[in-house]
C-alpha cells in the first residue's frame, strides 16, 4: 500500500510527485538542517485516492465541455462533492496521528498552517500563485476540513481556467497538503538575497515587523528596512518605520479581523538588532547557495530562535521584469502617467478595463498604449522605436516624419469614419454653458441611491466611452467633453502661429499668458474655496488656535468640540459637498476621498494660515499682465494696414484665445466630474465590501480592491469563500508593493528611440536638469520637495514646488508656489495646465527630481526651455 502521510524531514527535493512543489522544497530545506518549523505532508497519492473514491474522473468531461459561463457552477458542484465526502478513516487516523506528534512536540495550544502544494506547481512556466488555498490558525478540530478545502481549491474556477489555457490536463494534477506548526513569532519578515527593486546583487535586503509576517508581505504595514552588503554583511542602510499594525500570533476568540494596532511604545522601535539582521542574512545566503539562485526567504523569530518559513526564487528582480510575457509592444502613456504614479489595484483595473478605451492596456498597474494599434492608424513610415518615442513625447516637439503613401488611404478612411462618429460630439460641445455638467452630479446621486446597480452597472452609467442612453446624456457628457476638449491644442497652435507672424516681438510666454485665467476652472475654484476656509478660520482666534496646535488628522475632532467653530464647520461641509469626491491619486478606487477623511483639506487650510499669504494677489498680478499684453498687441497691430478700421487681426486673436481657454477649461473640468463618478463607484464597492465583511467572506477592509471583479461577484454569490481568496489577496498585495517601489519601464517589448542630444548649453551643465517645458517663464527661488501633500503641506509663498506628480488635490499648492518642477507628465498634464492658468513656469518629465533637488536649494526654473538649474544648496546624488 502507498504511504499517505510523511514527516517533513522525510521528504526530498525529488519528491514533487508525492509532496508537490512547495512540500518538496520545504522537505529539502528541513533535510539539509535549515530551521524549518516541524510538520508533515499529506501526499498527492492520498488526494488521488480520495478523488478516485468520489469518481471525480466522471465529472471532468462535463467540465471540459462547459462554456465560459458554466465553469463556475461546474466547479462549485465538484467542490460541494468534496466538502460532503468524509476522508477515509485510515487516512484521517494517520493525519491526526501525525498532528498529535506535532502537539506532543510543540505543546497542546499549537495551531498549524495548512498549505496547498500542487504537483503541477513545478510545470515549466506555469505559475499558480494565489489560486490554491492556504489556511492559518488551524487547530485539531478543523484540520481535516481544511485539508479537504485545499484539495477542493484545485477546482477553483480560476485554477481550472488557468490549467485549461496552459494545456494542463485536469485529471493529471493532484494536491499534496503541507501541515506545519505556526511559529508564534515576536518578529517576522522577508529577506531578499538580491535587491528586488534595483536588482543589485551585492545587497541583501531585509524587511521586518512585529508579529506574524503576513502584514509585511501583503503590504499592509510599512516594515523596518535593512540593507546589508553581501560581502561581510556590513549594514548599508537602516530605516525604522512607524509600524502601526501587526498580525498577532494568536486570534482572540470571536474576532475574525487579524490586524491589531501595535502598542505605542513599539511603533518606532527597531525590530532587529544588527546581529539579528546579519543572522537572518546569513541564513538567506545559505538558502541561496542551496537552491543556486537568488532567494526570497520568509522567516520568523520566536523566543530568540530563527525559523525559515519559506524560500523561493525572487520572482521580480527589477523593472525590466514588468511586462515580461506580454506578447505585444507597448509604450507608457504619458498623459496618463501622472494619474497612475502608483500601480492601480486589480479591482480598479478591471473596472477601468471594462469601459477602457481601445489600444490601452494596464501592465504592472500602469497604463501603456499598444504600438501596433497606433502604427496601423498613423500614415507615417515609422519603426516601432520611432513610434514609441513619438507617443512617449506626445505634446513635445515631434521629430520629422515621412508620409507613407500606402497607408494614406487607410488613414483618410479612419479620419473620415472618426469624423462621422466624433463630428457630432465636436459640434455639440462648441458652445455649452459652464454648468452643463451639473446634471452629472444629479445622475451620480441617482446611481448611488439605486441599490440594484452593481459597480459595473455604475461604471457603464457614469464612465461610458460611448453614449448609452439617447435621452439621458448626462453620463456620457463627461467623456464627450473629454473627447472634444483636446481641440484647444489646435486653437493654441493657430494662436501661436498668428501671434508669431503678426507680432514677432512678443515673449515666448505670450500665448500662454493670453489664454491664462482660471475663471470657471473647477480645480482652481476648489483652491479658492480652501483659501476662503482659511479666511473663515482666521476670523476666530479659537479656530485659528486649533489649526496651529493640532496635526491635520486631529483638527476635525478638535473643531467639533469647539463651540466657536460651528460657522467654520458649516463652511467646511458646504465645501465638501461640492469637492468631497476629490482625493490624492483619485483615479484609484482605493483612495480615500476628502468627504470620508477631510484631513488633507484641513491640512491645506492650515498651510494657508501658517504661510500668511494671499493667493489672490498672484492671480491679480497675472490678470494685470494679461491686460498689459493685450494692450501691447493692440498697439502693435494698429500699425498694420486696415487694422485700425476693421480690427480683423485683433478679433481673430481674441477669438482663438477665447476658444483655447474654453476648451482647456472643459478638459480640466471634465476630470472633476470623472472623479465624482469614480467616488460614486467607490461607494458601491464599499457597500459590497460591508456586506461581504458582515458575512465573513472578507476579513479586512480594503482587501476587496485586490480582487478581480469576477471574484467579487463569486464571493457575493457564495461560490467563493474567504479561505479561497485569502491567498490571492496576499499574493496580489505583495505584487502591488513590489510594483509600487519600481519606476515603470518606458517601453515593453521594444526599445524607444532616444531623443537627439540637445544643442542647448544646459545639456552640458552638470547642475542643470533637462525636462520638458510645460508652462513658460523663468523663476528663481528656494526649492521645497513635497512627496505627499496630505503630510507635507507647508509650502511658503514663492517657493518652487518639486513634486513626484500632481493632481487636482495639489492645486492649492500652486496658489503659493513660484514655479513647479514635476517628475512625470507632459505639456497636457495637470501640472502644466494649472501652472499655465496661474501664469507660473513649470517643467515636467524630470525623473527623480525629488531626489536630485533638496528642500532649501536655490533653483532656477526655465519654463521656456524645460531646464532646472540647481544654483546652490544641497544636491542629491545622481
Amino acid at each position: 500500500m502507498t504511504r499517505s502521510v510523511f514527516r517533513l524531514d522525510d521528504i526530498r527535493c525529488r519528491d514533487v510527485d508525492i509532496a508537490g512543489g512547495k512540500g518538496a522544497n520545504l522537505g529539502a530545506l528541513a533535510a539539509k538542517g535549515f530551521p524549518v518549523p516541524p510538520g508533515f505532508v499529506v501526499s498527492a497519492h492520498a488526494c488521488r485516492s480520495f478523488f478516485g473514491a468520489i469518481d471525480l474522473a466522471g465529472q471532468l468531461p462535463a467540465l471540459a465541455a462547459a462554456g465560459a459561463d458554466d465553469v463556475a457552477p461546474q466547479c462549485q458542484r465538484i467542490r460541494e462533492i468534496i466538502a460532503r465526502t468524509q476522508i477515509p478513516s485510515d487516512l484521517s487516523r494517520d493525519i491526526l496521528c501525525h498532528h498529535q506528534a506535532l502537539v506532543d512536540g510543540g505543546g497542546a495550544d499549537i495551531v498549524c498552517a495548512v498549505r496547498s502544494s500542487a504537483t503541477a506547481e513545478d510545470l515549466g512556466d506555469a505559475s499558480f500563485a494565489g489560486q490554491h488555498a492556504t489556511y492559518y490558525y488551524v487547530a485539531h478540530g478543523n484540520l481535516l476540513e481544511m485539508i479537504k478545502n485545499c484539495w477542493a481549491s484545485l477546482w477553483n474556477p480560476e485554477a481550472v481556467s488557468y490549467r485549461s489555457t496552459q494545456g494542463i490536463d485536469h485529471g493529471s494534477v493532484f494536491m499534496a497538503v503541507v501541515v506545519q506548526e505556526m511559529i508564534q513569532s515576536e518578529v517576522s519578515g522577508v529577506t531578499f538575497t538580491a535587491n528586488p527593486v534595483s536588482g543589485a546583487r551585492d545587497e541583501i535586503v531585509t524587511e521586518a515587523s512585529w508579529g506574524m509576517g503576513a502584514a509585511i508581505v501583503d503590504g499592509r504595514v510599512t516594515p523596518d528596512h535593512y540593507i546589508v552588503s553581501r560581502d561581510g554583511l556590513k549594514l548599508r542602510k537602516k530605516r525604522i518605520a512607524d509600524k502601526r499594525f501587526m498580525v498577532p500570533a494568536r486570534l482572540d476568540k470571536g474576532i475574525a479581523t487579524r490586524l491589531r494596532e501595535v502598542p505605542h511604545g513599539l511603533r518606532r522601535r527597531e525590530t532587529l538588532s544588527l546581529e539579528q539582521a546579519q543572522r537572518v542574512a546569513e541564513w538567506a545566503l545559505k538558502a541561496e547557495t542551496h537552491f543556486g539562485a537568488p532567494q526570497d526567504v520568509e522567516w520568523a523569530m520566536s523566543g530568540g530562535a530563527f525559523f525559515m518559513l519559506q524560500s523561493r526564487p525572487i520572482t521580480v528582480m527589477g523593472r525590466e521584469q514588468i511586462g515580461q510575457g506580454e506578447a505585444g509592444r507597448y509604450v507608457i502613456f504619458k498623459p496618463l502617467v501622472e494619474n497612475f504614479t502608483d500601480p492601480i489595484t486589480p479591482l480598479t483595473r478591471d473596472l477601468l478595463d471594462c469601459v477602457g478605451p481601445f489600444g490601452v492596456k494596464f501592465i504592472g498597474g500602469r497604463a501603456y498604449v499598444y504600438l501596433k494599434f497606433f502604427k496601423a492608424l498613423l500614415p507615417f513610415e515609422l519603426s516601432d522605436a520611432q513610434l514609441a518615442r513619438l507617443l512617449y513625447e506626445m505634446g513635445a516637439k515631434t521629430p520629422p516624419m515621412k508620409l507613407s503613401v500606402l497607408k494614406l488611404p487607410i488613414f483618410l478612411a479612419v479620419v473620415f469614419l472618426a469624423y462621422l462618429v466624433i463630428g457630432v460630439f465636436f459640434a455639440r460641445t462648441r458652445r455649452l454653458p459652464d454648468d452643463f455638467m451639473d446634471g452629472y452630479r444629479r445622475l451620480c446621486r441617482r446611481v448611488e441611491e439605486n441599490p440594484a446597480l452593481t459597480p459595473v452597472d455604475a461604471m457603464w452609467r457614469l464612465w461610458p466611452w460611448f453614449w448609452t442612453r439617447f435621452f439621458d446624456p448626462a453620463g456620457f457628457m463627461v467623456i464627450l467633453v473629454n473627447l472634444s476638449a483636446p481641440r484647444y491644442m489646435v486653437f493654441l497652435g493657430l494662436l501661436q502661429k498668428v501671434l508669431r507672424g503678426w507680432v514677432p516681438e512678443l515673449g515666448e510666454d505670450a500665448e500662454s499668458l493670453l489664454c491664462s485665467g482660471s475663471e470657471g476652472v473647477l480645480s482652481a475654484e476648489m483652491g479658492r474655496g480652501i483659501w476662503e476656509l482659511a479666511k473663515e478660520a482666521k476670523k476666530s482666534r479659537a479656530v485659528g488656535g486649533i489649526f496651529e496646535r493640532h496635526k491635520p488628522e486631529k483638527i476635525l475632532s478638535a473643531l467639533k468640540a469647539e463651540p466657536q467653530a460651528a460657522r467654520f464647520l458649516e463652511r467646511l461641509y458646504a465645501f465638501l459637498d461640492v469637492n468631497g469626491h476629490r482625493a490624492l491619486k483619485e483615479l484609484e478606487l482605493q483612495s480615500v476621498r476628502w468627504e470620508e477623511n477631510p484631513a488633507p483639506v484641513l491640512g491645506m487650510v492650515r498651510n494657508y494660515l501658517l504661510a500668511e499669504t494671499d493667493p489672490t494677489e498672484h492671480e491679480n498680478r497675472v490678470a494685470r499682465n494679461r491686460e498689459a499684453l493685450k494692450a501691447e498687441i493692440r498697439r502693435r497691430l494698429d500699425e498694420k494696414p486696415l487694422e485700425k478700421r476693421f480690427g480683423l487681426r485683433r478679433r481673430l486673436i481674441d477669438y482663438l484665445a477665447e476658444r483655447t481657454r474654453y476648451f482647456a477649461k472643459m478638459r480640466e473640468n471634465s476630470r472633476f466630474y470623472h472623479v465624482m463618478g469614480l467616488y460614486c463607484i467607490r461607494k458601491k464597492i464599499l457597500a459590497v465590501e460591508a456586506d461581504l465583511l458582515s458575512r465573513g467572506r472578507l476579513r479586512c477592509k480594503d482587501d476587496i480592491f485586490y480582487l478581480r471583479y469576477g471574484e467579487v461577484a463569486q464571493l457575493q454569490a457564495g461560490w467563493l469563500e474567504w479561505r479561497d481568496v485569502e491567498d490571492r489577496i496576499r499574493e496580489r498585495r505583495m505584487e502591488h508593493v513590489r510594483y509600487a517601489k519600481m519606476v515603470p519601464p518606458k517601453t515593453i517589448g521594444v526599445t524607444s528611440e532616444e531623443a537627439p542630444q540637445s544643442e542647448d548649453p544646459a545639456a552640458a551643465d552638470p547642475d542643470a536638469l533637462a525636462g520638458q517645458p510645460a508652462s513658460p517663464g523663468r523663476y528663481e527661488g528656494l526649492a521645497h520637495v513635497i512627496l505627499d501633500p496630505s503630510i507635507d503641506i507647508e509650502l511658503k509663498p514663492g517657493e518652487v514646488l518639486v513634486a513626484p506628480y500632481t493632481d487636482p488635490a495639489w492645486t492649492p499648492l500652486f496658489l503659493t508656489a513660484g514655479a513647479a518642477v514635476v517628475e512625470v507628465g507632459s505639456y497636457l498634464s495637470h501640472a502644466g495646465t494649472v501652472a499655465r492658468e496661474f501664469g507660473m513656469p513649470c517643467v515636467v518629465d524630470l525623473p527623480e527630481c525629488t531626489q536630485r533637488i533638496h528642500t532649501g536649494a536655490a533653483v532656477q526654473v526655465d519654463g521656456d526651455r524645460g531646464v532646472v538649474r540647481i544654483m546652490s544648496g544641497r544636491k542629491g546624488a545622481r
Partner: protein
Amino acid sequence: MTICVQTALFLAGMGLCVQWVAALYGIIDRGYCLQTRPRQRKQVMADILLWSAVSGTVFWLLDEGYRPAFVGGYGTFVLFHIGTFLGTKLVIRWKMRVSTRR
C-alpha cells in the same frame, strides 16, 4: 465629372447632417435649462433653424439630378448614427458579461 460632383454632394450631405443632428442634440444637452434660460432656448432654436435652413437651401439650389446624392448623404449619416448607437449597446452588453466573468 458627374460622379465626382455626386460624391462631393453625398459627403456634403453627410457633413451638413452632422451639424443638423448636433443641433437637435441641443434640446437634450441643454434640456435642464431650456425652461429657465431664454438665451439658451433661443440658441438651441437658432442652431436648429440655421442648419435646417442651410440644408434646405442647398437642396433647393441643386439641380434635380443631383438632389438624390445630397439626400442620400443626409440619410446615410442618420442611419450610420443610429447604427453606431445600437452597435455600441451590443458591445457594452458583451463587455459587461466579460467583466463579470473575469
